[in-house]
């Protein structure tokens, strides 16, 4: 077991309980010993930074200070929520960059008996830790019920690969890490180019037309590529696509049905764990129909169909101009996250 400091964030006990439950179920399998910070507080989401600068950084600084106090041999703080991850990383970064901010935040923390030196803690998102510390080999070794035939759209959202203060990601626009993880679970990963597009964040609460428009775009693109369900790495993204899907349908007079689960839930399923233990069923857009495919082999196409398809493909290729080659085209084994 490897010990990591763990900052759950407010949603994990509430709207994202399924994320928390599934993470608790898979952590021992992956050798993750997640030590929750004592008496952590809210990170301020995307709200506090717009209200007042020094208090916003002090609010997050308190969590970093607690982490540093509780470090005990590790300095890695893992956050499962993208917004929490970014706010923690952003505060560490800004305190390092700005001496004035560092001074003011520490002068504030002092009143509560805390202190934080930027750089003392390395903030990382859960997905990135699983990709780079646990590794796909270990994940693959734990798979006992491959998700063969389940078509998934990997949805990363914004704040994990962007703005990437610590330069952990090579690609900020089309990273394929989540694709590779899901493929390791045996799932059929659809090419989902909107993987890092925005879910709208709090926009569903502010501007209905805009917020629902962004949600619809993501769902329509997943449907168009034949996905059975979408996969999220952030409570906010999951909440927008799942909880607001009904209201979005009413708003646009549509009838989309696109379930979205957390990647940890799919890992648990692939590891053979009980769906109820993984918070399956807590989603408002029912995923059970999609999950009925798990374990079901898609019958291979018939010999004649295959040959006809090959002929057509050969004809198409003969006419086509060559593509510029990408060293890291989907399927190519390459680490996209830099450590």
């Amino acid at each position, binding site marked *: 077991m490897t010990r990591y400091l763990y900052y759950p964030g407010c949603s994990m006990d509430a709207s994202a309980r399924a994320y928390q439950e599934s993470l608790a179920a898979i952590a021992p399998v992956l050798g993750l010993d997640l030590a929750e910070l004592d008496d952590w507080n809210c990170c301020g989401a995307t709200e506090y930074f717009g209200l007042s600068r020094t208090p916003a950084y002090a609010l997050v600084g308190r969590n970093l200070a607690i982490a540093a106090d509780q470090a005990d041999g590790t300095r890695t703080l893992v956050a499962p929520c993208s917004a929490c991850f970014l706010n923690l990383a952003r505060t560490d970064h800004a305190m390092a960059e700005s001496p004035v901010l560092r001074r003011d935040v520490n002068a504030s923390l002092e009143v509560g008996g805390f202190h934080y030196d930027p750089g003392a803690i390395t903030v990382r998102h859960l997905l990135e830790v699983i990709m780079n510390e646990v590794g796909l080999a270990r994940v693959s070794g734990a798979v006992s019920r491959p998700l063969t035939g389940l078509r998934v759209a990997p949805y990363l959202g914004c704040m994990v690969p962007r703005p990437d203060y610590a330069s952990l990601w090579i*690609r*900020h*626009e*089309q990273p394929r890490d989540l694709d590779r993880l899901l493929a390791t679970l045996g799932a059929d990963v659809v090419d989902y*180019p*909107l993987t890092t597009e925005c879910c709208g964040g709090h926009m569903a609460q502010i501007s209905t037309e805009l917020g629902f428009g962004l949600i*619809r*775009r993501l769902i*329509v*693109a997943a*449907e*168009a590529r034949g996905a059975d369900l979408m996969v999220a790495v952030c409570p906010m993204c999951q909440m927008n696509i799942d909880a607001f899907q009904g209201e979005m349908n009413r708003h646009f007079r549509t009838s989309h049905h696109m379930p979205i689960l957390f990647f940890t839930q799919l890992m648990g399923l692939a590891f053979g764990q009980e769906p109820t233990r993984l918070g399956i069923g807590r989603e408002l857009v029912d995923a059970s129909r999609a999950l009925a495919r798990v374990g079901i082999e898609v019958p291979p196409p018939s010999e004649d169909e295959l040959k006809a398809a090959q002929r057509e493909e050969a004809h*198409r290729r003969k*006419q*086509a*101009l*060559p*593509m*510029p*080659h*990408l060293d890291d*085209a989907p399927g190519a084994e390459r680490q996209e996250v830099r450590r």
Partner: protein
Amino acid sequence: MTADEPAGTGAGPRIGVYVCHCGSNIAGAVDVEAVRDFAAAELAGRGVVVARDYKFMCSSLGQELIEQDVRELGLDRVVVAACSPHMHEKTFRGAVGRAGLNAYLCDLVSIREQVSWVHTDRAAATEKAKAILSGGVERIRHNVPLEPVVVPIDPATLVVGGGIAGITAALELANAGHKVYLVEKDPSIGGHMAQFDKTFPTLDCAACILTPRMVEVGSHPNVELLTWSEVVNVSGYVGDFQVTVLKKARYVDTELCTGCGICQEKCPKKVVDEVFEAGLGYRKGVYTPFPQAVPKYPVIDRYNCTYYEKGTCKACEKFCPTGAIRFDQQDELITFKVGNIVISTGFSLFDARRIEEYGYGRLPNVFSSLEFERLSNSAGPTGGRVVLRDGVTEPRSVAIVHCVGSRDRRYNAYCSAICCMQSLKFAHLVKEHTAATVYEFYIDMRTPAKGYDEFYQRLMDEGTIFVRGKVAAIHEAEAAEGAAGKLVVQVEDTLAGVQRRIPVDMVILSAGVEPRSDARDVARLFGISCSADGWLIEKHPKLDPIATMEEGVHIAGGVSGPKDIPASVAQGAAAAARVLSHIAAGQLELEPYKASVAATACSGCRLCNGLCPFSAISYLEDRAVSEINPALCQGCGVCVAACPAGAISASGFDTDQILAQIEGLLLEHVGPAGPTAGVLA
């Protein structure tokens, strides 16, 4: 008389000090009068007999001032505090020479590049200028008269890189009657220009204007064309460079080959041509890059040859009517001497794959600019049909994206200079070949040369739609956007102030230009330097753009920065003109800075022998000391610094001179010890 005797007694040195204002360049940040007064009062004891300041010391009047003082005041040393010696050392040494003094008894100390341009605190800058001047005065007390070294110029010239700049330089030199070695690493000369269909702004056919020059240079009796070859070593100096070239095996006997092309026809191996066809087309394992290639002889790409891979095939050999295929041919090293070198190794295209949001390499119908050049070229992979990646469909709408990888701190901060005009040309070519609607997405339209803005006007007449805004992203159209199968260009139309999503069939990325990936190796090979970006650095960006700090090594074309065809041609010709002036003079005066070994102090450790980059040091077994051949020594000073016994010194940079200059900088001898020098403003 010793240098330490007080001045003014008639026995010590008589030094004149001249402080330049350089308009406000120096005077803006340095109190020039205070520096002058300092020299007159505080350095009088060190031999300064006159100190003057002047608005522009380098002007004729400024120079005459110095000449007059040398004659009338009997000066025997002159220190000018002005700009860098790179700028005006020659000017002032010329002036004292005209006044009858040895030129090397004049030094220039820099209070512009090293003081006024880099400091804002006037008081501190003035103090620093005084210290630098004091160092110059201490140093010049130890200067001795020197005579420049005269070297003969070998009339042959090496031109490296056979693009339009190199071809131009080679032809100018050859037509003047001199021998030229033109070295090109690809199988044919022609460079990027050979890949184009049309050239802006006049839309001449690139092949029609380039091919005659390629043929001329290829058949010129004075040109030795070495294609499929690379320079691997250069030694010597201006007038007398020794060059080693690796001539890669072509596996074709050029004495027998007629260039009939049957081998290419019969070769079963087809590979994507990443070089000439920019990855958009195929070539064979044995190939000439294009039909008008010069020379006409093909090469066998041994890494893509069935025979070399599997040991069987030899189709080319079987079908060659003259028996010219030679599978046993070996690489060859050839050496020759030249007096001058012109480097014209060109540039590379920015790799648009680096901008993920533009989808190049992911979205099939996003093309790079070089791909489009080949697509629109009648000799290209589609025979000039402008079609989508499926090879069939003609686009009905095309977006051309400017500033791809240029003016962007994530990639290259500079403007690539050619892309606006190139993009306008593309718009014209799309219109010429198809009925498509064409959009140009630009940040600023930059068309600053003869006929360029007129071309922009012409494109407006042709109905091109111009949208001012840097493209944010290119997507596949989403089902929600109702434009299935299209690409969507997402952009802020900055003149309308609205975000637009414009569906198109094809996107052309007008990628910027970059230094070649091996630019640093080229710079090292020829002993010149690169900017941080990787462009080769010219001697002076305005006044000497084709020379380098290495005498006899010249640069021309895109190797020193983004340039279009007219500018590259002008530089090729300019570099040739400079070389011709060297050849016509027959000889060149070089700085007489040479190292020499004091045999009595040399311990014979031989440390210096291996360090000398010019192989100028030999070890004399009988006397157990090292000796430097002054003809080979370039005065670089490596041996001086390395000698543990301090036995090596370099004229012009003697240890005494350097130590005295340091003492001067530390103001160790300052004080009005002698009679006050005259202050004359």
